[in-house]
């Protein structure tokens, strides 16, 4: 299976093809609904974000608490479409990729194409398995949001599929066995 090491060069991003399975490694930030609302407000007010959005990849996840000895608890993707309204501006400010589950809006697709970014899809409801591919986790911001806090995670061979590629092709529009 194709292995991807973040950050991806423009050439590597252009090679991604909607529907193909990949194993992702590198640094990813976690953020979902409440964190996006705050990040967006900070962008609107021109304040500095708690992490550099340049080339950032965001995983839409709110994990369960880690047991002692665990890096992270169950950590599968949440529904990406709730974060759709934030995406164009986040990508204008440097974000290059997203990991989640489910369909995205046309505006998200356009932003992915415009910035030659990517949207990866992980298996919804497979949080136990996916947690094994997260090998490090550090707090970044908004700890009061508990599971919704922004954290920096290191993933190793994290299994996912290319959801939307930089041509705007969408995994959910492919037919079965369409390759």
């Amino acid at each position, binding site marked *: 299976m194709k292995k991807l090491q973040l950050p991806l060069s423009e050439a590597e991003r252009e090679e991604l093809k909607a*529907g193909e*399975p990949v194993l992702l490694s590198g640094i990813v930030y976690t953020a979902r609904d*409440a964190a996006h609302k705050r990040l967006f407000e900070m962008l609107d007010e021109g304040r500095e974000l708690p992490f550099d959005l340049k080339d950032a990849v965001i995983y839409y*996840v*709110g*994990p*369960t*608490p*880690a*047991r002692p000895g665990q890096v992270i*608890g*169950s*950590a*599968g993707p*949440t*529904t990406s*479409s709730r974060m759709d309204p934030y995406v164009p501006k986040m990508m204008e400010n440097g974000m290059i990729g997203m990991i989640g*589950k*489910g*369909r995205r809006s046309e505006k998200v697709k356009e932003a992915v194409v415009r910035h030659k970014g990517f949207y990866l*899809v992980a*298996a*919804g*409801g*497979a*949080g*136990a*398995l*996916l*947690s*094994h591919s997260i090998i490090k986790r550090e707090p970044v911001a908004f700890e009061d*949001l*508990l*599971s*919704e806090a922004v954290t920096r995670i290191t993933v190793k061979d994290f*299994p996912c*599929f290319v959801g939307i590629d930089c041509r705007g092709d969408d*995994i*959910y529009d*492919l*037919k*079965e*066995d369409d*390759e």
Partner: protein
Amino acid sequence: MREISVREIEERIAEACGEIAVRYSPDLIKALQKGRTQETGFRSVTAMDILLQNAETAASQNIPICQDTGLVIVWLKIGSEVHFTDGLPSEAVNRGVARGYTECYLRASSVTDPLYERKNTKDNTPAVIYTEIVEGDQVEIEMMAKGFGSENKSALKMLTPADGEKGVKDFVLETIRNAGPNACPPFVVGVGIGGTFDSCAVNAKRALLRPVSESNSDPRYKKLEDDLLTEANQLGIGPLGFHGRTTALKVQVEYAPTHIAGLPVAVNMCCHVCRHARMVI
């Protein structure tokens, strides 16, 4: 009268919270395995394999199947000959949920006020609690931990009697189609028909408590469930939305008497992680 300490309710709820978060019920595992055999596409086969492998990892390593460990809904059927001691059963339910979610490292997903403050309550309380007084000296507890990826895709429609069976089917299938890949297929679909605006929705949720190996005892409604499942699986959404045959594992219908002017239909979407437990004290 039989005296029951509400501490027993607290204990049983706390324990069940931890259990259903990490283990699919056997009927659901069977349904997933059956679904796996029906898939042929590369992605749909991979999707089912991932879900089955995840189920095994979750149970063997005590990690929640899904990070959305849900909001808790509890139905208490209280025998009229029961006398509770040590407090109120509703308080015991919430103490049980708080303990279960904290002690078992489950996610606190409940916020205080939905529109303005949205502050996390930190222990996943309050639970939604329904109580009913029944005959006897026992307490039956049924509970569910409902994820919101699928809850968000649920819908209710007040049909009219003229819409009939076709109207019901069209609305159920439209709701499943709208849920699409976002609500984590393969689904278990709870359908409530009849009653009032509110009770119809509760019946749709109650329908999800039934094991997927069991159908409605009324042959007409069983046929409706079977027909809806067949048609849902012709929608082609497939496992995780990657296209394929397994869009739903089961459609469960519960019905209730209704008004001469009405035909309410509620569809409570549930992802493949359909977590519920039943206990009797």
